[in-house]
């Protein structure tokens, strides 16, 4: 058939069934939007780091990286430059600091370099003048950061760095036009000499990018390793990207799991929306068959139909998803911002667009096949009859048994996984979901059969109409119940697991924080884990403050170990609670604390221990600035820091890092409340201090805020999935009801009142949603148990397992209530159909 004829057919049908076509489009668009939004937000964080790394390093292939915040001697730069195989070098100083302007502040990374960095040819600095950077005696702020702080070119801002406050002028404000996506990152730029002065790190650099001579990469790397001498790390130029990928992996994996659940919901929504059009398509098929079209002719017409709808709906869905990803699913760096300069740039990858687009079209195409197969199985005249349904097939019982078997098998697999192989929890979740979808038609059938028996004892037309209508459109009823079921399943499982995880992280944070009365640390949100060092000069000031009983030095840092940016905690010796008791996975707590106190022992998190094949008592070398040998005192969870954690005592840390700097001070009070003590210490430090004094409660609150930001995506996915599912259910049911207006008119002609019809519609919706949501909630409880295990094994975070009953009931009630509310309007309008409609052709 020619394209012109196909278009003519399509236009004719759309005019006749515009409302149904629109509903189908909305359903598919919602599914596509959900999928697209999750994909975009999921990939934006890693894309942000990848852009930053690639854009900065340009042609550099290797780098020399300091293992501590103190950096390394910049005289090494000349040595490296003159080493065999090395073509060009560019030093960079990286410092974590807090920028303050008035009452606003932001945690940022200061990236400092000179003209050599610009000459590396990185795309981000390509628009920047090398000479202008060298001349500056000020800092450069990206435009979004300047706006957030409310400052402009020429203003003065305060940098809180290394425990000091320094006033600096804003030398320039750069936009995306100057520095590309780097403008979205939490960074400030400065000339390296000026930055060294600001950070108190004169003559030090953090890393050195190296461009090898052509074909001399191996020689250059050998040169770097010789110079590093085991005190510095030699890595590829995009080393940070790999570190970030490792750190973000648990987040990505858990989000991917939840995104796949939401993708399944999205696909079901789209598929279900197409089922709305089944009857219309059957009559089109019949019309074509009567007109002499063969199988392939009909396929051509229907595929064109599905293609147009799929494309239109996918485009609308992607546009909607784009808005969702901007306003609802904003990429949140969360806890990752503690260790990486990750921004909130939104990255739309071609894969995300293609996946969303493909899903919309696939749903439209697949849903078209059902009426096609049905129509070609039945005689031509039956296809013309709008009420005709497929007669119960003789092998219907066989199909039921098949799905029953699949359902039971899925349950069995998930139970085995839960009990015996928790590390394969993802398989269990998929099996559970498959089991639910397989059993749903069987459960719906049995329930309707029971209701059918029950209604015979009732003297009302409401139950027969409701049950009869549900039995009439079985496949559509199953599809709607499946959407409700999957949405409630996903929401219950995700939200329960999220709460369990959050609860455990809160408990870990409490155990880490509640070891003293006050914490004093470098200011800045990104210093949540107390990893930013400062000179210990404040100890004497605080120690002489009235009511301060003791001040102890706490040290901590982020250390790159293999592919992991590990959190190293170094509590003071002889302090209480050096190891949070609930987090010990292997080893004896008291023995481990004694060992830690003695020195030369370390507590290692599980994933790190597994990766290095370490057991309690084993020895290992910690590649800190000074490599030190430690023995494993105990194995713990990772305290919510996914790359892993290590605990040593503060003295061992000082030796290994070769610095007396501290990263926090633990203050014990005597006869004073925490808040009063906090005020006293703040007074002692003075108004211009760059140190923050926090009570335990405040510190815990900050921890919680960070972990909540990191886990917020899970709640967003669960919420959006519920919202989308609810809207789609409402649209599908509304469409289903609307299509029945003619039949309702006939019922009214037979004397059935509007009120009775309305009640029948509400009963029908209630039954369908009740069955779907209840099954979803029950399965969701099982899913939550599996996800708890999955999160535990994937993230290495501590997880508390709970039943999640409240979340299940909440999700069930929410979907049921909102979807019913949405159906109210089309139901009410459909029930008001004029009796005259029964006479219309």
């Amino acid at each position, binding site marked *: 058939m020619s394209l012109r004829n196909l278009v003519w057919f399509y236009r004719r049908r759309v005019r006749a069934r515009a409302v149904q076509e629109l509903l189908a489009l909305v359903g598919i668009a919602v599914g596509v939007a959900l999928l697209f939004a999750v994909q975009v937000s999921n990939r934006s964080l890693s894309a942000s780091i990848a852009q930053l790394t690639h854009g900065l390093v340009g042609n550099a292939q290797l780098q020399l990286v300091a293992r501590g915040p103190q950096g390394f001697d910049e005289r090494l730069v000349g040595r490296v430059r003159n080493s065999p195989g090395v073509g060009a070098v560019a030093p960079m100083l990286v410092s974590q600091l807090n920028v303050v302007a008035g009452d606003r502040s932001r945690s940022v990374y200061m990236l400092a370099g000179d003209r050599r960095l610009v000459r590396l040819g990185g795309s981000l600095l390509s628009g920047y003048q090398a000479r202008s950077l060298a001349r500056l005696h000020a800092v450069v702020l990206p435009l979004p950061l300047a706006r957030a702080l409310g400052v402009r070119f020429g203003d003065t801002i305060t940098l809180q760095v290394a425990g000091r406050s320094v006033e600096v002028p804003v030398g320039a404000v750069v936009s995306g036009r100057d520095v590309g996506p780097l403008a979205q990152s939490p960074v400030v730029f400065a000339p390296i000499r000026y930055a060294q002065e600001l950070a108190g790190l004169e003559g030090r650099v953090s890393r050195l990018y190296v461009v090898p001579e052509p074909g001399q990469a191996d020689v250059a790397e050998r040169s770097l390793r010789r110079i590093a001498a085991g005190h510095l790390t030699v890595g590829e130029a995009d080393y940070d990207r790999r570190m970030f990928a490792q750190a973000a992996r648990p987040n990505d994996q858990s989000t991917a799991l939840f995104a796949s659940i939401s993708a399944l919901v999205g696909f079901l929504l789209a598929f279900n929306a197409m089922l709305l059009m089944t009857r219309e398509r059957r009559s089109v098929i019949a019309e074509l068959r009567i007109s002499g079209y063969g199988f392939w002719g009909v396929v051509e017409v229907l595929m064109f139909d599905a293609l147009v709808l799929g494309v239109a709906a996918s485009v609308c869905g992607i546009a909607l998803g784009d808005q969702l990803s901007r306003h609802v699913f904003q990429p949140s760096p969360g806890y990752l911002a503690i260790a990486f300069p990750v921004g909130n740039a939104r990255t739309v990858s071609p894969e995300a667009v293609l996946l969303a687009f493909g899903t919309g079209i696939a749903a439209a195409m697949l849903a078209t096949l059902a009426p096609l197969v049905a129509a070609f199985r039945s005689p031509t*005249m039956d296809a013309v*009859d*709008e*009420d*005709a*349904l*497929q*007669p*119960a097939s003789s092998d219907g019982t066989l199909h039921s048994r098949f799905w029953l078997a699949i359902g039971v098998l899925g349950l069995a697999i998930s139970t085995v996984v839960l009990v015996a192989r928790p590390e394969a929890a993802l398989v269990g979740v998929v099996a559970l979901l498959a089991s639910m979808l397989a059993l749903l038609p069987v459960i719906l059938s049995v329930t309707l059969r029971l209701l059918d028996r029950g*209604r*015979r*004892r*009732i*003297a*009302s*037309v409401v139950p*027969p*109409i409701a*049950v*009869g*209508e*549900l*039995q*009439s*459109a*079985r496949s559509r009823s199953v599809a709607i119940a499946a959407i409700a079921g999957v949405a409630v399943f996903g929401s219950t499982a995700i939200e329960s697991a999220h709460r369990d995880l959050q609860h455990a992280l809160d408990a870990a944070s409490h155990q880490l924080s509640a070891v003293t009365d006050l914490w004093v640390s470098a200011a800045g949100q990104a210093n949540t884990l107390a990893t930013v060092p400062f000179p210990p000069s404040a100890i004497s000031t605080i120690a002489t403050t009235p009511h301060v009983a003791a001040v102890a030095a706490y040290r901590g840092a982020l250390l790159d170990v293999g592919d992991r940016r590990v959190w190293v905690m170094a509590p003071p010796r002889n302090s209480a609670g050096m190891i949070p008791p609930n987090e010990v996975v292997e080893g004896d707590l008291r023995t481990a604390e004694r060992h830690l106190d003695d020195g030369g022992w370390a507590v290692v998190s599980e994933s790190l221990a597994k990766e290095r094949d370490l057991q309690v008592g084993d020895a290992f070398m910690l590649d800190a600035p000074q490599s030190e040998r430690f023995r494993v005192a105990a194995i713990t969870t990772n305290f919510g820091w996914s790359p892993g954690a290590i605990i040593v005592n503060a003295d061992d840390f000082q030796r290994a890092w070769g610095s007396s700097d501290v990263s926090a001070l633990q203050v014990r009070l005597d006869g004073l409340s925490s808040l009063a003590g906090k005020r006293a210490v703040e007074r002692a430090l003075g108004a211009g201090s760059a140190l923050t004094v926090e009570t335990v409660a405040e510190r815990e609150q900050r921890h919680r805020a960070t972990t909540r930001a990191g886990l917020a995506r899970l709640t967003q996915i669960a919420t959006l999935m519920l919202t989308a599912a609810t809207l789609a259910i409402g649209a599908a049911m509304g469409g289903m009801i609307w299509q029945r207006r*003619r*039949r309702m008119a*006939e*019922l*009214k*002609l*037979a*004397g*059935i*009142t*509007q009120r*009775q019809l309305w009640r029948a519609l509400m009963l029908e919706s209630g039954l369908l949603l009740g069955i779907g949501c209840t099954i979803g909630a029950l399965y969701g409880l099982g899913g939550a148990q599996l996800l708890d295990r999955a999160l535990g094994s994937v993230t290495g975070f501590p997880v508390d397992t709970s039943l999640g009953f409240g979340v299940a009931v909440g999700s069930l009630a929410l979907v049921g209530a909102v979807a019913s509310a949405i159906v109210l309007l089309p139901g009410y309008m459909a029930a008001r159909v*004029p*009796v*005259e409609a*029964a*006479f219309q*052709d």
Partner: protein
Amino acid sequence: MMLDIRRLVKHYQVPGGEPVRAVDDVSLSVARGELVALYGPSGSGKTTLLKLIAAVMAPDSGEVIVAGRDISHLTDREAARYRLCEVGFVLQTFHMIAGLSAIDNASLKLVGTGLRVREAHQRMTPLLTRLGLDERAEHRVSTLSMGERQRVAIAKALSTDPGLLLADEPTGNLDTRRGYEVLALLRELCRERDTAVLLVTHDPQAAAVADRALALRDGRLVEYLPDAPPALPTLQPQ
């Protein structure tokens, strides 16, 4: 008289045009047990007349007396009750609930009167047997043939034992033979049950089974003049 229509008028106002005289001063009576066939081309006002008798719309003037009561200005609730108990409808298309059985669909009106489904089924069984549907009563309507579905529709229309049956092109979807079967059945049932039947149709066979045949033209009742006598098919005993 079961149905007595007196000087019934219904005009439609078309925006920017002349009023359409859908029913124009029509007077008509149908006695109990009588079958009246009403012919007319499309747009002649047949369906409007049926709607007026069904209390779906109110006339501009005139009266529709059914069993001695004027039903032309009933409230919605009264109209629903009237359609439930006093009048039955058989239409060309039958939008039944596909998920219910034949007997369930046929019993819907009875259940609407307050009977339990079980009792309604008991009441319907003899009628379905009379209509030759006894063996198909528990089958879903989606598995029935078109002729069988039309018989279910007739059973439903007669389920509350109404005095008046209105049929709008009941043979429109059936072939000649099945159409004649349905007409003959209507004829027999209306005599057996003493029901007045007003049959709106294009089918020339209807005149042969009707007690009287009338025609509507431009909203006015006129004498029915068949072009040619219909050739009736020979019915085989079932």
